[in-house]
């Protein structure tokens, strides 16, 4: 079931992103390679060019590389061969995993501030408060920046999902869980990693789009 659901979910995500890109794309169209390099480089542009900014960018780049390696080594045996990860793939996966965990922790600390939600980004909460509590809440005056909210939500979801993703494997490495619970935490790791991968893909796409629009 995991194999089927994963393939469908990942394909749906990629198709959705492609459709969104086509439907909402603005500005002159570029070639795929040039456009791809341009878009990717947007990710690396930091308004504040300082040592900290460079480090943050490096950590982000490292996180992306680790994510790609972990996704390939983790999903390939399961989705393509229908078997558990083992052998060389497991070794590579286990090598990049702690590096990715560390990068996520650093990104969580350095990016959390800039990804806080503000009042104008939550108009539906204001609406809810007005309707439910009869409190006098000022009506929203600015248009809702959907992409930015989703981008920030994706960030927090990535950080949130990182916990079960890391802890599920960590707990299994101690003499704590028997076979039944080992199966359970392995399932938690697999399903969490699927959702995590989808959210990372969405977050990365939105990051590129928002940078192109100058919103972040």
């Amino acid at each position, binding site marked *: 079931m995991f194999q089927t659901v994963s393939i469908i979910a990942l394909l749906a995500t990629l198709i959705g992103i492609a459709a969104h890109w086509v439907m909402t794309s603005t500005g002159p169209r570029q070639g795929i390679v040039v456009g791809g390099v341009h878009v990717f480089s947007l990710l690396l542009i930091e308004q504040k060019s300082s040592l900290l900014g460079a480090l943050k960018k490096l950590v982000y780049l490292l996180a992306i590389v680790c994510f790609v390696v972990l996704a390939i080594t983790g999903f390939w045996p399961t989705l393509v061969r229908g078997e*558990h990860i*083992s052998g060389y793939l497991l070794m590579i996966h286990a090598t990049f995993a702690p590096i990715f965990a560390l990068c996520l922790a650093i990104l969580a600390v350095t990016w*959390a501030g800039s990804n806080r939600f503000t009042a104008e980004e939550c108009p539906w909460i204001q609406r809810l408060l007005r309707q439910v*509590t009869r*409190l006098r*809440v000022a009506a929203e005056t600015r248009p809702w920046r959907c992409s930015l909210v989703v981008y920030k939500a994706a960030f927090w979801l990535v950080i949130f999902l990182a916990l079960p993703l890391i802890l599920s494997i960590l707990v*299994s490495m101690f003499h704590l869980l028997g*076979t039944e619970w*080992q199966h359970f935490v392995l399932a938690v790791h697999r399903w969490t990693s699927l959702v995590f991968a989808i959210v990372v893909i969405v977050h990365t796409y939105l990051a590129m789009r928002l940078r192109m629009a100058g919103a972040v």
Partner: protein
Amino acid sequence: MRRELILTFVLLLTVFLAPAVGEEAAEGPGKLLGDESDGSRAHPTHVLPLFPENEDGEKGEQITPDADLVLPFSTKYTCGECHTYDVIKQGWHFNAVDSNAVPGRLGQPWIYFDGKLGIQIPLSYRAWPGTYQPADFGMTEFRFTQVFGRHMPGGGPGEVTATDVDDIGRQFVAGKLEINCLTCHNGHHGQDQGGVNGYAIHVSVRQNFRWAATASCEFAQVKGSASAMTDTYDPYMPMGDEQEPTVIYQPEAFNADGEVLLDIRREVPNQRCYYCHSNVYHTEGHGESEKWSTDEDVHLKSGLTCVDCHRNGMKHDIIRGYSQESRVSDNPLAATSSCEGCHVPEGSGVPEAARLGAPVPQHLGLPVVHFEKLTCTACHSGPWPSEQAVYSKTSRAHRLGTPNVNKAEKALPHVLSPVFALEAGTVVDDPNEPALHSGKIAPHKAVWPAFWATLAEDKVTPVALDVVEKALKKVFEELESPADGSWTPIPTEKIGEALNVLAEAVEEKVAYVAGGTLYRLDEDGAMVEEADHPAAAAYMWPLAHNVRPAAQSLGIRYCTDCHATDGPFFFGKVAVDSPVVSDTPRTVEQVAFQDIGRFGAWAFAASFVFRPWFKIVAIGSAALIGIVLLLYGLKALGAVARVLAEQNQ
């Protein structure tokens, strides 16, 4: 006239119909008294008349100890009065010669060896790949029974009617080796399988097949030897020669009706199983091979008996206990009598766990991938793996429990264990799928075959033993045999000489298989060595006993019990056993038998050095992420609270 005609007609009708009716009555299915249990768990008392087989091969007159001709009792006609003999002989212990019997998982072969001739060949009537049919080796059923019947419960090849000219006469004298029910089911401490006057001696030394069951029991003695009699000797017309086989029953064993009390146990005592199924592992320090210094299987020490797991009904289709057995066995308990069946059953809705008090294992901290890669026995059975696989002995290979056994560590045949190898699978009776590969690594016993063969288009067939003996005895007679019963070292040049002599004798292309290598002659008559030839590969069969306690299982200390760069599980050595003299003894690493790349296994083992660092980094990262989530979560909560508070003002 009319009345006479009617009477004649009725008479004729009766004459013609009576045999048909009588035949129908004789063909009635009818289970015998002891074929089906009434449910009582009490042991029935076996006070029985004894019956022999008479000269016509039928049931004879009841045996009395003071008869003129005192014959040995026949289990077929004594036990067979209540238990259908033909049903029992279909059981696993007796059906090796039955071509319809599905071979199942590879098992221990019978190993014929001759250290002087450089022979150590695994034989089996079952179609297990890697073993050879005794007939291909020139062994008739009669000869096979004489050599190996010492550790057989009778039946099987022992009951096959001889067709070889040399055997027909001998079989008339020696008789057939019937199933000896007492081998397993006699609870009396006087049952003698391996003593100086016991079953094994009567079968293998004296050729007293007909008398063997009687000789083994506690209330009779057999003197004399069929092997000393000529082919014209008639056991039903004894001549009074003191060498001819004679039975002496203890008169006090017979009651007033001429019946004998037999201490028959439905649940076979462990001691009976041990006679044929004992193992010795020559681990470090010879003393550890002694019974007093090693522990028995944990199941036995926990109160179980062999037959608590290895069960069968009247069909004697005994459970062997491996996980794929239900695919080939009709025994209804096959699926639930493997390791998983008792300890971790999947169940069918009704709870089935903890049968026979089996603890349900927790396997704390063990990644589930191990259950896909390893059998239960890989971690729990056999001796703890050491740097090198050790010499092992088994009852059947080394005739343990019989007189004058060579107790030296390196006495032939050389059986090495544990060898952690990929299980070859279970052989099923399906030409489209001859073997079910379990795909798991399991501990095995291994024997490197050594034998002289003919070579025809890469097909290697053993040369008959008598041909080899006749042709090569003189070639090797000057070689000295060691006192420890190990190989007589054969120099390589002697192999070439022997091949040439054998080639002349059989007038075919010949080869010698030993130590993983096939030696043959090229077109010019020079010897050629083909290393790692498939025909010379070690024959291996999975071992399951002795099961060690959970606290002695592999991995109980840490992952590095196996995953270490010098760990014996992957990198232990298995000697390539060969009689051929070599400057450097060859060894093979365990990983070579596991279908795993050596470097991959080494690299994975090496990565365990970083496992603690992995945990530290992961814990620290998770803690940091958790703190960030908590901090900003509380901030968000505070913001909402402030909004609500400001609105209230």
